[in-house]
């Protein structure tokens, strides 16, 4: 069975249906891309999985456990980590403290949390900022910090919403490397992204949404040749 | 308890509620545009009352005549206060904003005492004194006029915000002042305007209230808690919310006092207020955060 199972999920806002009977799955240790035109319902789906929205219908399971409708903190405890489009750094803390706050989910001991946090900072190549106020870091550094922080809860799956937007091609490449490193630690990644150069080469699977409905699913190769995807999203 | 008493009380509740609404509209306006809670709002009201009082006692001008004058003076005062003090705390943390306006509140009370002594004043025999019989109900004429005034002012503010270019600019500034500047809107002018209008509403309320409420330096303290409740209940920043919530609070207070005992009237309002927030944390007509 897959790590994350999204089954027949719908989400409605008043009269508007942002997701309609969407189903897909993410296997442990794989990278899955969630793409689609603007307003397709990607962020909405993302928020349902991370616990920020309660799905109007359908079920979401992580490791066989139902997490649909759980609040965000419970989803996090269950093993779902996420990043935000704007970094949402804890600005009154240093970089290390940001990550420690997350590491404390596993143990309340401050010293142990610090050790763990330093490990994740090193992973994200941010050791040199450890004792600097996080507010003083640049936006892209803060985004990387957010990844380190998300990883510090040692999730089973990491959700990333448009982390590569606003990066130039060589920066995109660095970001891709980070994703691969995360995957290599056995953490699955569900990525919402428009920067296709960032997601196509590394995704094990791509799910395409359009107007709230899943219109395609498959390897990057299959998807990019799918005529429905071409008309709806990629353009010709 | 007779129906007559109930109806009479209901009518009084609506009338006092309209005054609450008028005070609260100014408050919600300032909040809506600037995200600042003005603790000194009751003192704006007090200034409006004193201005009416002095014009009456020094120049024998009737409160109904001086109302526009008071409104203009308070408008200018609000703008001035913005330019002198508030402009410096636009980007300060919420707490220091609260304490700036809190300081202004104490300051204005102190200044009022310094200039006008702590005596209780009042205006007698203005053009609107006395009471009238209306549909079998006995209503104070000043209260009636004040209620009508409140409706008119609310209507004007509502029209201004929703139908005029400047109103749109004010709302734009409220939602993102930097973006508003990119549209060519002078955000400082808008903020000053918000304080001006906010103070002017309080001034109007003060002018109307002065015809039937004693005037003294601490008078704002009696109204501020209720004004906060009204603004909150209506939803911070919502003018129509403040209007309806004002009436609601007036009616609940008066009816609750009548039916459950006057010493509990404030408690009833507060309990209702907290209960509403349980179900609508953004207030009755507030926008979701």
């Amino acid at each position, binding site marked *: 069975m897959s790590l994350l199972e999204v089954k027949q999920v719908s989400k409605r806002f008043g009269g508007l249906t942002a997701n309609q009977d969407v189903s897909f799955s993410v296997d442990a240790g794989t990278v899955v891309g969630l793409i689609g035109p603007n307003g397709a319902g990607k962020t909405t789906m993302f928020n349902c999985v991370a616990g920020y929205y309660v799905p109007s219908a359908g079920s979401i399971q992580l490791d066989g456990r139902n997490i649909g409708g759980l609040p965000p903190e419970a989803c996090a405890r269950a093993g779902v980590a996420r990043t935000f489009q704007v970094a949402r750094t804890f*600005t009154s803390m240093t970089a290390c403290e940001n990550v420690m706050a997350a590491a404390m989910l596993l143990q309340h001991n401050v010293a142990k949390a610090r050790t763990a946090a330093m490990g994740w900072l090193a992973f994200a190549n941010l050791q040199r900022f450890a004792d600097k106020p996080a507010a003083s870091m640049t936006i892209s550094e803060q985004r990387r910090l957010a990844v380190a922080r998300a990883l510090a809860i040692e999730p089973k799956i990491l959700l990333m919403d448009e982390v590569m937007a606003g990066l130039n091609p060589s920066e995109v490449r660095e970001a891709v490397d980070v994703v691969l490193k995360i995957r290599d630690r056995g953490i699955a990644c569900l990525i919402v992204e428009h920067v296709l150069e960032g997601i196509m080469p590394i995704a094990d699977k791509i799910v395409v949404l359009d107007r709230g409905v899943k219109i395609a699913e498959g390897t990057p190769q299959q998807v990019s040749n799918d005529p429905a995807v071409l008309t709806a999203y990629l353009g010709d | 308890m007779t129906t007559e008493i109930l109806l009479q009380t209901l009518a009084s509740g609506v009338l006092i509620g309209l005054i609450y609404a008028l005070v609260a509209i100014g408050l919600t306006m300032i909040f809506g545009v600037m995200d600042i809670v003005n603790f000194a709002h009751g003192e704006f009201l007090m200034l409006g009352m004193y201005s009416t009082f002095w014009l009456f006692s020094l120049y024998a001008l009737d409160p109904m005549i001086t109302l526009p004058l008071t409104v203009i003076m308070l408008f200018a005062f609000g703008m001035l206060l913005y330019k002198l003090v508030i402009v410096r705390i636009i980007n300060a943390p*919420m707490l220091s904003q609260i304490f700036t306006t809190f300081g202004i509140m104490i300051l204005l*009370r*102190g200044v009022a005492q310094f200039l006008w002594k702590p005596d209780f004043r009042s205006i007698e025999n203005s053009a609107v004194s006395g009471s009238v019989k209306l549909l079998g109900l006995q209503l104070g004429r000043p209260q009636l006029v004040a209620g009508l005034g409140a409706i008119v002012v609310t209507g004007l503010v509502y029209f201004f915000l929703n139908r005029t270019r400047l109103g749109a600019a004010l709302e734009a500034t409220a939602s993102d002042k930097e973006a508003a500047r990119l549209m060519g809107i002078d955000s400082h002018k808008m903020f000053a305007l918000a304080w001006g209008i906010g103070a002017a509403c309080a001034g109007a309320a003060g002018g109307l209230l002065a015809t039937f409420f004693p005037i003294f330096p601490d008078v704002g303290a009696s109204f501020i808690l209720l004004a906060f409740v009204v603004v909150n209940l209506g939803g911070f920043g919502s003018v129509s919310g403040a209007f309806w919530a004002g009436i609601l609070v007036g009616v609940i207070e008066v009816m609750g006092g009548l039916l459950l005992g006057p010493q509990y009237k404030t408690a009833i309002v507060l309990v209702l207020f907290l209960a509403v927030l349980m179900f609508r944390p953004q207030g009755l007509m507030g926008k979701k955060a």
Partner: protein
Amino acid sequence: MKNILLSAVLAAVALALPSVVDASHLNTVILVLMAAQLGVAWNMVGGYAGQVSLGHAAFYGLGAYTSTVLLINFGVNPWLGVLAGGLVAALLSLAFGWSCFRLKGHYFAMATIAVAELVQIFFTEWEYGGAAVGLYVPMDKHGWLWMNFATKLPYYWLALGLLLLTLAANWWIERSYLGYYFRAIKDEPDAARSIGINIARYKQVALTVSAFFTALGGSLYAQKELYIDPGSVLSTALSIKMALVSILGGVGTLLGPVVGSVILTSIEEFSRILFGGSGRGTDVIIYASLIIFVAVFYPTGILGWWTSFKERRAARADASRQIAAHAATAQPTGKEAV
């Protein structure tokens, strides 16, 4: 090293103080200590966890009333009464949190005022608690056992001890995981949830601890002034003062409220002593002007201003160094048209 030295100096001052000042100045010092203690307690939830409560007088009053009612009606020793007051306030904080924590920002602040106001109305009507008439703490049982003294000195030690206790608790919290959680909740509540922090629970923890210590302060007030009534221990003005002390000194810092209390209490006392007798409100004008001045020009409080002043000085030096380094290594360099 610097800290140890500073602590030693402070300890020496604390020990020597009572023997060099007269009872009235000692009383002022006690007021400073008591206000500081309240500020520190408030700061736990208002500063660290960022939940701006303007209703803390409810806890203070509850502390004062619990110990006093127990003493008068059941002869319960105040030492136990103080503890009971803390626990009762902690209990009330659950209801307080339950009704207010779903609200954010200004809605929260206003709701806390409403709750405190309700508590005040309750005590104004509550026959058993003396209603509006208030309660007198009996003066007949003296001494440390009954926490009741004819002189000021013991109150100095009590206030000092309570402040140190509260500071110690705050210090411990600040360094434990709770401190991290509180600050995370304050900075970015959504992000805090994403890393598994149950923000409702930890806001409540912050509030409950804060309520407990605030209540202790209230009981001490009752034992010191020997008369309580709803107006003096449950007023909104009191809630605001607790917050004000923290803000003046610097919210979310351990010693901020202490600094704030020294400043605020001095302004309050001296402006009143110097100008209050005139009866023209001059003291109020001065007091208010100073509050406005500090709020406008030191929006992060005196301590906050001091740290950011030091930080900025460091950052400026740092930045110029970085830019110099960048300029030296930047490739390609110079403006060149291709």
